[in-house]
């Protein structure tokens, strides 16, 4: 599987979690263009609800959200037998990830990153990275 269109076609469903409407809209534009099925949530609680109901190929997850943040979602997946226990997380963030922070995030099974503001090319590159290791 090498071409971009093959990779996109192989995606069944994605969960996008971000409390910022602007980022959710941007993601929806790209995913609509790709004709990829996606669910959108604004906080960790909504995300957990979706994660118990559908199987996702991966989760685009914002780190800092009020109420229930990205770590809350990652921790939920680690601690519960769900449909998505092994679903890769693409952490979507502004924050620079140094080695210590990378190790911290690995503890929550977060291995992949997408830096904001993202575009179609960046998202595709991150997805290719996820699929390479699947």
């Amino acid at each position, binding site marked *: 599987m090498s071409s971009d269109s093959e990779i996109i076609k192989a995606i069944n469903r994605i969960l996008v979690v971000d*409390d*910022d*409407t*602007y*980022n959710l*809209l*941007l993601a929806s*534009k*790209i995913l609509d*263009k790709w004709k990829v099925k996606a669910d959108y949530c604004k906080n960790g609680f909504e995300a957990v609800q979706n994660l118990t109901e559908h199987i996702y190929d991966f989760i685009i997850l914002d780190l*800092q959200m*009020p109420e229930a943040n990205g770590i809350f979602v990652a921790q939920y997946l680690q601690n519960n037998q769900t449909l998505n226990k092994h679903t890769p997380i693409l952490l979507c963030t*502004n*924050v620079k990830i140094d080695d210590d922070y990378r190790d911290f995030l690995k503890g929550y099974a977060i291995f992949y990153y997408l830096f*904001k*503001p993202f*575009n*179609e090319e960046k998202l595709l590159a991150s997805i290719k990275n996820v699929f390479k290791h699947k």
Partner: protein
Amino acid sequence: MSNKYYYSLELLRKSTSNDEDFLQLMIKTFIETNRKSIDELKVAIENNNFKLIGEICHKMQSSYKHLNVSFVIPILEELAQYIYSDGNMEEATSYFNIIDDVSTHIFSELNTYIKQN
């Protein structure tokens, strides 16, 4: 449309695949969400809440970077550090005035763009 001293729609236009309707939706969302954030930032400063100042500025960063608001991005990055440690309230107030002034100008220009297109 762009003003080289304030912002550019180039990246946003590319991200929306030149879909004008969607571009306008993104612009309206940019204005709405950041107007709200600026109001919240003002209150956070009045309440000397460094962590909340940091969180709001962190959140504002991605959309301001998307529009390449060059005057404001470094300020947001600096204030976002308040999440991790207490900052300087005088500095925060001074920076807030810049964020507010520049953003007001940009919102006004973007609203004009929406009306004209």
